[in-house]
């Protein structure tokens, strides 16, 4: 119960956060409470809903299932890091333009999942995209607009890249 405290540095969106937490502190709680990055949400705390999805060394992970100490020395990225210099990135813009969010609670998780998809497989097939999205839950949108937004972002990025 009275776990020893651990002092270490979390690197989030390229910024170092010196934190002091119990071993049982999850990465999600550390991001939200110790780093003040409340964009990462919790929907189930048992690894199903994906609301807590962040990127660790480029891979989407469930921040509710990882302990903060496991993220030491890794590069964590969260929704707060997406807007480059304050300007929305193409994926964020596509979410707004395609009405891919309603309450917005699942959105940070889907944005991070989408970021990983765009970075690893920008020409992903429609089927594979839907398959990949099935790892996260949204109760508001019925998903179609989320898939549409990620596709639109991929298209925007490929034309941007081509010009």
């Amino acid at each position, binding site marked *: 119960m009275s776990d020893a405290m651990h002092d270490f540095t979390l690197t989030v969106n390229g910024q170092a956060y010196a934190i002091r937490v119990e071993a049982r502190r999850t990465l999600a709680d550390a991001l939200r409470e110790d780093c003040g990055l409340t964009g990462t949400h919790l*929907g189930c705390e048992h690894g199903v809903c994906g609301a807590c999805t962040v990127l660790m060394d480029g891979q989407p992970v469930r921040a509710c299932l990882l302990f903060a100490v496991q993220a030491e020395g890794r590069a964590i990225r969260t929704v707060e890091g997406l*807007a480059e210099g304050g300007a929305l990135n193409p994926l964020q813009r596509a979410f*707004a333009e395609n009405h891919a969010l*309603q309450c917005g*609670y699942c959105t940070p998780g889907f944005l991070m999942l989408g970021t990983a998809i765009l970075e690893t497989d920008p020409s992903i097939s429609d089927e594979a995209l*839907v398959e990949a999205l099935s790892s996260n839950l949204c109760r508001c949108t019925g998903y*179609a607009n989320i898939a549409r937004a990620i596709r639109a972002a991929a298209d925007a990025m490929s034309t941007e890249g081509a010009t």
Partner: protein
Amino acid sequence: MTATPATTRLVGRDVPRVEDAALIRGRGRFVDDIAPPGLLHAAFLRSPHAHAAIARIDAEAARALPGVHAVFTLADLAPYLTDTRLVVALPSPAYRQELHRPVLAQTEVVHVGEAVAVVVAESRHLAEDAAALVEVEYDPLPPVADCVAALEAGAPTAHRDASSNLAAELVLEYGAVDAVFATAPHRFAERLSVHRGGSHSIECRGVVARPDPLEDRLTVWSSTQTPHTAHRLLCDLLGLEERAIRVITPDVGGGFGPKLIFYPEEVVVALAARLLGRPVKWIEDRSEHFVATTQERDQSWDVELATDNEGRILGLRGTLVHDHGAWTARGVNIPQGAVSAMPLAYVVPTFRMAMKVAVTNKVPTTPVRGAGQPQGVFAMERLLDKAARGLGIDRAEIRRRNLVPGERMPYATPLKTRGGMQVVLDSGDYPRCQSMALEGADWAGFPERQRAARAQGRYLGIGIANYVEGTGRGPFEHVSVRIEPSGRIVVATGAAAMGQSTHTMLAQLVAEQLGGDMSRVQVIAGDTAAAPMGIGGSNSRQAVLAGSSAHVAATRVREKVLHVAATMLEAAEGDLEIEGDAVQVKGVPEMKVTLAAVARAVAGTPGFAIPGGRGPGLGASEEVVIDAMAYANGTAVAEVEVDAETGGVTINNLVFAHDCGNALHPRIVDGQLMGGIAHGIGNALFEHMRYDEEAQPTSTTLADYLLVTATEMPPVRILHMHSPTPLNPLGIKGVGEAGVIPVPAAIASAIEDALSPFGVRIAQVPLSPVDLLALIDPQASGSAA
């Protein structure tokens, strides 16, 4: 007036949502994001028993744990409460016993998850550790797990001192239904069991309460759909004047019904904060959500339809048993809504449904998106399929013959609402809407598709369901519109936002009248300090009620702005227009006066007259009263393939034709419908809140209780009709719940059609693969193949 894109610049158009900018940056402010300095954390100790007497509670060990600030039981809190029960039941003569739930259980627990004590500590972890140290001695009592068995003679009672498990009974009837049945040429009976689970917004519930000694006020942030109701109940229970409490609904991560209820946790957290003089936060986790947030669950229907030889409905009668759960957390509105929805789309000359509401040792039931209507529609549509089969009439055709025809609008039904008002279907053309859906789904071409698939050993089916939904439940919603001396426009409302784009909707309507720039409009929703009264989010009502008030208030402000500006510019009012931040002479944009200047001119200077002669300020506040509900309608057609080996169902296509009057924002309308449709698919195939015979919940994670994911979503085509309602100035009908209502019925119909070679009859939802395999008779399969 009717708002159409031809004559408007914002209303009726897909303008960018004002909510999105913060949410896509991770800068939303949900209740768990609120962390005032000095914050303490609460954890609730909950009953592990479905039914037990509490012999003793010993919290000494928990209180002694370092970092624990308090452990409260009801005995500790009672001296500071005016009532130890939450008296929240909607009025109804139907109740047969009072079931007001306690703030915390004291002598008896009646469902798993009922809160018994609260621990407040330095951290949530500590609070949970301490809760595990609270010793409660329970004497188990016999549980009531099933709503039908609950009403049998000799059943144990869910509350040990109750004389029965009958919470309420009511009958909805008109016409000489028994006489009609006695002579009807055809009668079709069904016994149906319809289950709906929870709402499962991705954000669970949460409360933060912060006492402010400087202002002598308690601020409570709650993820509630009804902040003004919460405010009233908190003031009542804590014995405080209205000014002493402020309730704020921050960003809410989905509501879908259960967040409109006032919960024990809200008052306990508020009181704990007062007693400790520190801010206190409680955030529900998902496992608590399964056992402490209200849900809908079980209904058992015995229903019978009488028709003539052409399939025209002569009468409809039956009984319904509804699972009420252990307490009255809202009322009898789910069974009432279910039964009322049953005949609504059709001409039903005689009708009687007798409802019994049964107490069980489970979480209380209250409306979830659709509020009983999906069940009522399921019952009606199952009967129509059976009648079609019995009479050899096409399923769509029997519906067409019975739908209320467009030329009979407005159609006064013999039904009454829960408030005793006559149900008048105000507008629409239901048969035309059904034709649109049939055409969109190529209903006529389906038999050929089915034959071709069967030749390959595949089982395709098509199904149809109609609904009519009463939307925009009155009486009103408060909205005030004010132009500040800065020229900015502030809109405050009693409506509450939980993801349905309420801010966008109000900003759109107000900016339409006041310059066309939504970025100049600030909307404050869900703050009892900003709006003196409010009803909040439920019954697909906010666009209808708050939208109408916003439109009328903004129109009044516009008139005043133009009048004052005319004096200032020495121009005729009719020559002026509001453009962006200024009023200008049409065609002469140099001749203008800013909104800020107009606002300042009428802000008043001591000793000087107010220009314009219409009194001070540029504000208007409205509560447009609309008692009658606006009836929206629609038709869903689902095409499925069932794997007869595995029982797996694939929805190949879903067409949803609907009429919600004018659309304020077409893309948001589609979004609301898609979310509802996804929820309806979940209700048809996946979502099952399971309990065992001891009333122990057995589906308490999202791995056991399945929500629809991206892979289960079929291609969906939404088709629109626009019959504006005359009941509100915008001509709109609500759309927040529509999607869910006909979908389970349409899917059930399609599955039955697909499995017709096996003689399968569908009389329940949800339908898991295991359920379907049990229904498929392997012998019949062999002979059909």
